[in-house]
């Protein structure tokens, strides 16, 4: 049969088949596939995407690595796992970092999340952070505006602080009419703690003390029980009161559906609420989806002085929840070179541009080139597209952007947090008690795993030298 010919200037990967681990599609997997098709066309290599339920992805990788199995040539994973997986990953080839496309990647990803212990270990394939969404039709309804003004003595605007956020939420919370104030994810295993972290970032990500949100970057003492965190948890519980029934069992996906179903006046979420909410086939409020940064705060806890520092303006601390999907090449792969080439192809400007506007690909902007509103207006109304992109770009570019936690033994830490968080939400413990307990257990874990090692890893994850 006719030998496949690679395109000009492309390497010849005839006979190479890459196994790519991913979660069950369409999210991410379809992007990897799109990239794969493109790569096959260019290089004649083949790509086999193997898909696992999201919850089982981590154990799948870990067992394979631990057994030294050559099961995957490329893995896609959450950055939180980077510390655990990094020892088994190959380094990104230097020449990938000398292209124009490289510089197009937003530095928050390029220089922080794709690195581990000073080396580039993975490639971002999806940008992820929390942005806020609101119902334009409600917020700009003159009757509502008037009523709001009468009740609170100020204009009904998109909230900039959490106080405003709760005022607005309370105002729109009308269970008898089937409309609720807001919604967040509260379910254990349903991404709850990222939502909580978003609250916490606003009160604890001090501009003067970078990377001190989770742990003291000098001592590795857990910070989760400081007053900033406690306040965040109180807020988080307030959201529960203003959320639709059964919210305690909501995962992020539910919040999205709630919002798109017109059940809540606001929510905050990854970029998906924007794409789902504006899609007429999935949403009852298409055309009315406004976006903005998540609210900020005038006050931020300073862990050094043990005081609330008051700022003259609202400090926005958008939270890089989840940090976006990464792709990497395990060291056990026999096709490292081809695998990296595939990753590069999949995430190049052209392909990622396609992915980012494909509904259901799960890919959110992570390159400057993704913020070209012309493309987006094909899917959304101009205003929606405009607000969506601005919220995404400004969050990413915010001075005080907060990075997600990445640590070895990640699941040990998050498990403790999830359990205590759920207890607090269920009213079995006060916020202070719950967080004290988390802090104590986190410190124990840190000691158990080696404080120095953990500290070094934490500092690396926060980009501290």
């Amino acid at each position: 049969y006719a030998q496949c010919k690679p395109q000009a200037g492309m390497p010849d990967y005839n006979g190479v088949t890459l196994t790519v681990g991913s979660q069950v599609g369409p999210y991410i997997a379809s992007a990897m596939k799109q990239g794969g098709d493109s790569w096959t066309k260019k290089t004649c290599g083949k790509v086999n995407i193997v898909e696992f339920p999201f919850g089982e992805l981590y154990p799948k990788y870990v067992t394979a690595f631990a057994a030294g199995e050559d099961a995957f040539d490329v893995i896609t994973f959450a950055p939180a796992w980077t510390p655990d997986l990094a020892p088994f990953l190959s380094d990104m080839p230097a020449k990938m970092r000398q292209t124009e496309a490289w510089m197009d990647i937003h530095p928050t990803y390029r220089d922080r999340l794709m690195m581990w212990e000073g080396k580039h270990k993975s490639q971002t394939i999806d940008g992820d952070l929390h942005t806020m969404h609101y119902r334009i039709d409600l917020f700009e309804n003159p009757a509502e505006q008037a009523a709001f003004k009468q009740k609170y003595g100020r204009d009904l605007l998109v909230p900039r602080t959490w106080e405003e956020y709760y005022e607005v939420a309370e105002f729109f919370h009308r269970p008898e009419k089937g409309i609720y104030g807001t919604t967040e994810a509260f379910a254990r295993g349903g991404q709850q703690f990222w939502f909580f972290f978003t609250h916490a970032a606003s009160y604890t990500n001090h501009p003067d003390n970078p990377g001190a949100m989770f742990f003291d970057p000098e001592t590795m003492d857990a910070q989760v029980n400081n007053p900033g965190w406690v306040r965040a948890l109180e807020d988080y519980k307030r959201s529960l009161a203003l959320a639709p029934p059964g919210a305690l069992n909501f995962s992020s996906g539910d919040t999205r559906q709630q919002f798109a179903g017109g059940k809540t006046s606001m929510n905050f979420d990854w970029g998906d609420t924007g794409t789902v909410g504006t899609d007429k086939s999935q949403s009852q409020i298409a055309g009315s989806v406004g976006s903005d940064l998540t609210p900020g705060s005038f006050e931020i806890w300073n862990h050094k002085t043990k005081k609330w520092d008051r700022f003259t303006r609202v400090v926005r601390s958008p939270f890089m929840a989840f940090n976006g999907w990464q792709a990497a090449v395990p060291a056990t792969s026999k096709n490292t070179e081809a695998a990296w080439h595939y990753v590069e192809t999949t995430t190049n400007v052209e392909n990622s541009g396609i992915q980012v506007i494909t509904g259901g690909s799960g890919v959110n902007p992570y390159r400057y080139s993704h913020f070209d509103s012309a493309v987006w207006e094909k899917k959304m109304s101009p205003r929606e597209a405009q607000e969506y992109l601005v919220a995404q770009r400004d969050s990413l570019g915010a001075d005080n952007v907060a990075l997600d936690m990445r640590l070895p033994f990640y699941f040990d830490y998050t498990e403790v947090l999830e359990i205590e968080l759920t207890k607090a939400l269920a009213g079995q413990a006060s916020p202070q008690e719950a967080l004290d307990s988390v802090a104590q257990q986190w410190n124990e874990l840190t000691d158990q795993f080696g404080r120095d090692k953990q500290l070094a890893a934490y500092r690396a994850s926060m980009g501290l030298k």
Partner: protein
Amino acid sequence: MKDRSKYIFIWPAVLVVLIVTLFPLVYTLNLSFQYVRLIPPLPPRYVGVDNYAKLLDQARFWGVIGNTSTLVFISVGLQYVLGLGIAMALHSKVPGERLFRVTFLLPMLLTPIAVALVWKQIFNSQFGPLNQIFTTFGYPNPPFLTEITWTYSSLITVEIWQWTPFVILMMLAGLQSLPQDIYEAAKLENASNWQIFWTITFPMLLPISVAVIFIRIVEAFKIIDTVFIMTGGGPGIATETLTLFAYQEGLKKFNLGYTSAISFLFLIFIIVFGTLYMALLKPQLEKRN
């Protein structure tokens, strides 16, 4: 009979089971005395019975045993009662029995994951059909999966829905093997149905009941998918089950020594339970042999 061929009959099955289960057993037993973290890779070290001691000392472990037992005993109990009732109804050739018989078996053959997913939707406090029913009766948005008592009720409902068919199947077989004439004899004595049940049907079914309940309990103690999908162990850790706990420790944290210890404690627990169960029921069973 001295018949050598008996070995040809039994060895293949024994070998397959031995080969596949022996290694895991030994491996796990060995692991349970070690401190092993797979990720990041740390060299394993032997810690004696530390894992066990720690477990027995951990409130969460006992909580988990309590949760699992609550779920298992209540749901298996109800499964048995319902299953026996339905089996008897089917056995009495209720109209439509052919259709019922086929349909009633269905849930047992569905993936527990699918079952849990479907029921999670039904239990949705907002969009679910059950909510609609409760709402029309003036109790909108019950916290099906978010409040402890409700959650247990919901989980037990699902367990019952899925596994009562197994009881039906086995009890129906048991009923079919009972002699018919003693029922006629009892009817001639003018015994009421209720008396007939307690004095004849139930005692005669006791041996198979014991076996069915035992198998169900052993299998039910392994419950994970339903809980994992429907509540994730919540609210809090109120519905965390043994296997879910082991899953978190083993496949999330890869704290393998500890997980192995959980498994062995679990095994010991089941065996102790099984022995007690049999010991308690033996006098009852022996009476009829």
